[in-house]
Each structure stands twice: as structure tokens, then as C-alpha cells.
């Protein structure tokens, strides 16, 4: 360590003295000023874009507010009971649970599998990894549109292929049928977002030293044993973190569902965010929508606390 320290010292030119500090330099000397400079911009944005709107939404949720009518009428906390007991909210909540947990489960399997597959060094591995990561970079809007196009009953490639192979005997409007719409969206969304899991897992996999595997091979371990005893213990925390983040994000997912079905057919793909959008922008009931937002926030907060208690992903953060 001392040689590294000497090396860094040697980088310091003579003109660096505390007397020649710039204005910014002065700010960095004082611990409190440093704190303000460092955390100020992030906290200011946090306040403006997260805390203030959330407080606003909690306040708004207690009033009857319509975009068509500027007068705010007090309704009080009783509204939350009304919403929680309404079948519209309950159904949307169940659909959110199905969409959230279901698509995250697909993403974990697909994402981890893909990471294991492209982790090795082989010919063209750079291109392979770039292709594996591509779906994440393509906007959900574009994926939603391509999905609509491919799944169309008249000219969609999926139908044409399934008819040709003989799996279907007549075309199916995958996004237009109540039975298939939700499952179809889950598959399309998982295709894109599995890549987030792939990214985190791949980064972790690449940090496992090769000699761990060599050692296991010497001891006569087979591929499954190597995975179970060497790989899995090192990636399980990262998978837990990815699962937490993805669940939060999938619960909040709006764009891909909205683009592909607008919540239909009927209400079969109306998850909570789509319900809130519908109420706010089509029924103009802002107070009602804000109350749904507040409930959603409380649910996600509880889920996170539970998750942090059980999985302790923070431990993982500290290790690095």
C-alpha cells in the first residue's frame, strides 16, 4: 500500500498548496459545505420530483378534484375505504400482482439463463453479449408496436408461423382476446426486461475467478455441482436485488401495456397504473387517481420493507 501511496504523492505537483485554492476548492474544505455541494443537487431533484409530488398526491387524495372543476371538495380518509372495497380497484390490484410477479418470474429464469450462456469466452462473444443486451435499450414503445404488428391476427408473423407449422388451425388475436391478452403482454414485457437481470448477473459472473472452477473440476465436480456450489452462492444476492427492483418496476409499468392493449380487451389488462391513468385523464377525477397513487405507494413501501428484512440486499451493497 505504501508504494501506491508514494506513487499518488508523486502525482501531486508543487503548485498544489492550500493557499492557491479556487472557490470550489474552498467549498470542498468545509465538511458541511462539501455535504451541501455533494448531496444538494440530488436531494433538490428528489424533493421536486418525488417527495413534493407524493405529498401533493396524499393531500389531493383527500379531496374531490376534477380537471373540469377548479373547486376542491373535502372527502376525507373515507375515500381510501371506498377505493379498497371497490371491485374495480381490487380486480386491478390482482391483475397487477399477476403481471408483476408472473413477469418477474419469467424474467429471472430467462435473464439468469441468458447470462450463464453468454458469460463464457467464445468466438464472437462481444457481438453475442451486445445482442443479448439489446432488448433493454429498445424503447418499450417500439417493442409494444412491433409486438402488435407481429401478433396481429390477419398478417402477424406469429400467427402465420403457427398456422404453417400446424399448432393453430385458425388465426388468434392474441392481444384482442380476454384469455390471452395478459399472458401475451407478460411474455413481451419479459423479453425486454429480462435483460436487466442478465446485466446484473453477467457483471457478477464475470467477477468470479476462474480458479474457483478449476479447483472444482480437480475435485471431480460435474457441471451441475459447479453451478450449485460455485456459481449460485455468488449470484444469489444479485438475483434477489434484481427481483426486488424488477418487481417494483413491473408493478409500476405503464407504457408497454398501454401501447399494446390500452388495458383491454374489456378490463383484462388494466393494472393499477392503467386504472389511475384512466381515472385521471379520461374521467378527470384527479383526487381519485391520487388516492390510488397513494395506496400503490404504501403497498410498494411495505413490499420493500418486507423484502429488505427477508433478503437483506443491503448486505450485498456493503460487500462491494
Amino acid at each position, binding site marked *: *500500500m505504501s508504494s501506491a*501511496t*508514494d506513487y*499518488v*504523492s508523486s502525482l*501531486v505537483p508543487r503548485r*498544489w498548496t492550500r493557499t492557491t*485554492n479556487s472557490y470550489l*476548492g474552498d467549498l470542498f474544505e468545509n*465538511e458541511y459545505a*462539501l*455535504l451541501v*455541494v*455533494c*448531496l444538494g443537487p*440530488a436531494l433538490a431533484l*428528489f424533493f*421536486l*420530483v*418525488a417527495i413534493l*409530488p*407524493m405529498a401533493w*398526491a396524499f393531500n*389531493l387524495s383527500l379531496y374531490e378534484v376534477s380537471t373540469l372543476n377548479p373547486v376542491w371538495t373535502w372527502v376525507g380518509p373515507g375515500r381510501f375505504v371506498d377505493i379498497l372495497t371497490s371491485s374495480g380497484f381490487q380486480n386491478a390490484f390482482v391483475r397487477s400482482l399477476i403481471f408483476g410477479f408472473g413477469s418477474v418470474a419469467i424474467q429471472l429464469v430467462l435473464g439468469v439463463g*441468458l447470462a450463464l*450462456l*453468454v458469460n*463464457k469466452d*467464445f468466438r464472437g462473444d*462481444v457481438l*453475442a*453479449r*451486445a*445482442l443479448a*443486451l439489446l*432488448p433493454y*435499450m*429498445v424503447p*418499450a414503445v*417500439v417493442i409494444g*408496436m*412491433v409486438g402488435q*404488428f407481429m401478433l396481429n391476427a390477419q*398478417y402477424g408473423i406469429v400467427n402465420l408461423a403457427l398456422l404453417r407449422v400446424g399448432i393453430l388451425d385458425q388465426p388468434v388475436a392474441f392481444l384482442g382476446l380476454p384469455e390471452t391478452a395478459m399472458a401475451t403482454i407478460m411474455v413481451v414485457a419479459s*423479453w425486454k426486461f429480462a435483460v436487466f437481470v442478465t*446485466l446484473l448477473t453477467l*457483471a457478477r459472473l*464475470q*467477477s468470479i475467478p476462474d480458479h474457483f472452477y478449476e479447483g472444482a473440476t480437480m475435485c471431480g465436480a460435474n457441471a451441475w455441482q459447479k453451478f450449485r456450489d460455485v456459481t449460485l452462492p455468488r449470484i444469489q444476492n444479485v438475483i434477489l436485488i434484481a427481483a426486488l*427492483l424488477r418487481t417494483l*418496476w413491473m408493478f*409500476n409499468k*405503464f407504457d408497454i401495456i398501454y401501447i399494446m392493449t390500452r388495458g383491454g380487451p374489456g378490463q383484462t389488462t388494466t393494472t393499477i397504473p392503467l386504472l*389511475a391513468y384512466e381515472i*385521471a385523464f379520461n374521467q378527470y377525477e384527479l383526487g381519485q*387517481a391520487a388516492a*390510488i*397513487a397513494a395506496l400503490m405507494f404504501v403497498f*410498494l413501501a411495505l413490499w420493500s420493507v418486507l423484502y429488505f428484512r427477508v433478503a437483506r440486499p443491503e448486505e450485498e*451493497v456493503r460487500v462491494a
Partner: protein
Amino acid sequence: MTQIVGTYLSYGQAARIKSISYQIVVWATLLTLMVPIIWLVIGAFSGLEALLSGNISRIFSSITLDPIRQVFFASNFFTYYRNSLVVAAGVVVFTVVASTLAGYGLTRVQFRGKKWLARLILFGYMFPPLLLSLPMYQIWRELGLLNSLFGLVIAEASVPLPFGIWTMWLFFQTVPLDYEESVWMAGGSRWHSFKDVALPQAAPGMIAVGIFAFQSAWNNYTYPKVLISEDALRPLTTGITQYAVQNYVFWNQVMAIAFTIVIPAFLMVYFLQKYLLEGYKATA
């Protein structure tokens, strides 16, 4: 080792066969996963009638630049493209600067409530963007930020910020404090040690955060949908849906716009995946 492999193949031959079959599995999987992208590219260069017939040989004989040309010259495409680039640039700059500073502050300054603050940042993931956008719409209207690219940048920068702070925080933790202390002992100031020692060490993290911020802004649909109603200020994501709603029968043109949105994304991951992995490696 050769005994395990078997009598008929040498170790080298067996390894070769294993490696080739492995590559076949990898490329077959990737090809399957790329079907939507491949279909998008084909659609972007096909005649409409051929494309809707679903007849592969007809589609290939109809290959044309027309869809791209029609989209380029008959729509607000350039405006959307410019808006997206401006917003993405703003989001990247703000996110990288704010996360780097916050990461440094969280690593190097001891203060009360630090643990609490760090948890709050992790909780930043919980704010549901669409649901935040409802009150945000009201606040932005009060502040006069509706229909402004600046207002959009502020809103969209909040999405990658928690992850950015987290990443930079971890990166600065890997820079030993000794390095900075030796700068101070040599007479340098904290600003010098930050700028010339800590910052270069954390550069891969900054690149990773920048890429993450870019993809987040490039993808964002919710905030422009709620905060921008003027067509001339729309970014690509809401611009393309606007275009598709009006011209949804012209699938080849819609795929042509989609194609032009995908190209920068592909170039980004191809050339920067090394840094991307470095960045995520530190967070993992």
C-alpha cells in the same frame, strides 16, 4: 483427464466438439430472441402489400428504401429526433454530475443520519413514475414547466438518479482513502484529491451511469406523454405513437421509424458494453 473423456476421442477433439456445440446453442438462442428485431428491420425496408401478405419471398423481393424516405420527409421525424437527443443529453449530464457528487459525499463525509439517507435513496425506486406524474402535472403547470424540454429533463432525470447514486457510491468505496490522504499530505486540497485522484478512478462508473441515464431518457414514454402536449416538443417515443395512431395501417413506415430509434441503441450497447459491464460489476 483423458481417461474420463473416453477411449475414442482425444481430449482436444472432445473439447472442440463441446465448444462448437456450445456455440451452436448460444447462437440459436440469440437468433430466436432476436426475431422481433429482425422482423422490425425487414419491415422497415419492405413494401406494404408484400409485408401484409406474410409471404416471405414476396417480402424479400419488395425490399425498398421507400418507408424510410416517406418517414423522413413526410413527418415531424427530425423534430422528434432532435427533441429526444436534447432531452437525453440533459438527463445524462445532470444524472452523471449529481450521482457522482452524491456518491462522493456519501462515501467520504461522515454525518448523522447517513444510513437513513442511504436507505431513502434505495427507496427512490419505489416512486411509481406514472402515479407521480399525476401530481407532477399539476406542479409543473404551477411552475410553468409544462410543454418545455427543460421541464421534461428535470422529470426524466429522476428515473435513473437513484441507481446512479447507488452505482457511484459503490465506485467511490473502491477508491482507498489512503490515495486521497496522501494528496493532502503532499499539500493538495480536497478538491484536488477529488478531481485528480478519486474522479479518474471512478470514471468507468460515470460512464456506466451515463449509459443507464441515456437508455432511461431514450426509453421514457410516461413523462413526455403527461407533460408534453405540443407536437413540436415531442420526443421520439411519444412522437412515434402519435405517428402510428394516425398511420397505423402503414406498418412498414412505423417499423421504419422504430428502426431509426433502435440503431442508436444498438451502437450504444455494441461499443460500450465493456464499460456497461464494468459499471454493473461494481454494483453487483
